[in-house]
């Protein structure tokens, strides 16, 4: 698997600027995260055709935010004078929640969404519980209410210590 697509220091200044621009585009469903935090920007490069190429990957195949994100990226690039940029969709390797940046995980927790924890072990274990700590009171005394939540990337949990329900950003 390729490396996490996070900004790094060895990029050309031009590409670095585009990464910074993309870091201002929020995820429309979890606006506290940028699309860079989410790990869905796969590359930014100057193509042999002289054009700027920006590649995005979807989180889940059916995620309705994918089309919205593409439009938001296009608008941000237009505003920054990159109207000719080529937007690409990359499927391989498939997105994984491991590509969330550490900053993204911290933002999620501060927003009240538990970031991804350890992957589920048993393939048959719908009721196998992954230890997830409450984003409000940090207790591990939590229970899963549903593996599915308000968006494809989230599950629904409840903290039995503080009594609050919360969203959990699933391992995927």
């Amino acid at each position, binding site marked *: 698997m390729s490396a996490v697509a996070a900004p790094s220091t060895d990029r050309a200044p031009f590409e670095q600027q585009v990464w910074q621009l993309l870091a201002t585009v929020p995820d429309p469903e979890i606006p506290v995260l940028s699309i860079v935090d989410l790990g869905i920007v796969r590359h930014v490069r100057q193509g042999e055709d002289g054009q700027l190429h920006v590649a995005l990957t979807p989180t889940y195949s059916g995620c309705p935010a994918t089309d919205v994100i593409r439009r938001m990226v296009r608008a941000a690039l237009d505003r920054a004078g990159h109207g000719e940029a080529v937007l690409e969709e*990359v499927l391989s390797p498939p997105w994984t929640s491991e590509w969330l940046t550490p900053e993204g995980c911290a933002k999620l927790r501060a927003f009240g969404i538990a970031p991804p924890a350890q992957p589920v072990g048993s393939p*048959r274990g719908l*009721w196998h519980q992954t230890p997830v700590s409450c984003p409000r009171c940090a207790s591990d005394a939590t229970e899963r209410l549903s593996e599915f939540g308000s968006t494809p990337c989230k599950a629904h949990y409840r903290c039995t210590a503080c009594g609050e329900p919360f969203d959990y950003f699933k391992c995927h």
Partner: protein
Amino acid sequence: MSTTPAPAILPRGGDPALDEARCRYVLRLADTSLVLGQRLSEWIGHGPALEEDLGLANLALDLIGQARLLLTYAGELEGRGRDEDALAFLRDAPEFLNLTLAEQPNGDFGQTIVRQWLIDTWQLEIYQALSVLPDTRLAAIAAKALRETRYHYRFSCGWLVRLGDGTEESQRRVQRALDDLWRFTPELFTPDDVDERLSLAGLAPALRELAPQWSLRVAEDLAAARLQRPPDRPHPWQGKRGVHSEHLGHLLSVMQHLPRTYPGAHW
């Protein structure tokens, strides 16, 4: 739409018969996901509990997302300018190539779970195999879908076990659903000329080689769920060749109503 370098290692145009088989093969995968996704979406607002309503809707969303990627690719392989929408909404039942199992009605929650579990276990084998084959475009879609299918399976198998190993009533109902739906399973791993042509070309798995792994997984799950595997029967079902049960036409009439009544309509 594509990554660099160019996606499919074998572009269209080599062997017309092989191109057609590839298109049909991808359409079968696409239509199975699309039709099952449409079926699952019928549960929205009717699930036995809010959590399961959400769960089924999430599965439907993934399946329709997979269908979109596959239909787009099938349209390109076909080379007649049909996009995902034209393929989903402007074909009639005999042109749909989904597995007959996918179009079967939802029935009760147990029946929906059995249908889902059977297709999940089939997709696990198919997508796993396709994800390492040399059609890189299809491999990328399969690898993406495989991740999703794994948790679909966790959902369907979890419920299969809970219902099968549950109360007398849940056990009775889910066994009845299994007895009813089992007759559609021979179609899953019985190859026809399209499967064999692609498998010979190294572009699709040999179904007969996947069948034993599937049987093994199914046997383990049924044992965990305390359900009896029904006897195998000869298989007259040919959904993947466009010959469907009476249920598909009704499903399509709902799914296709809006785009056919208001051509070109969008949000």
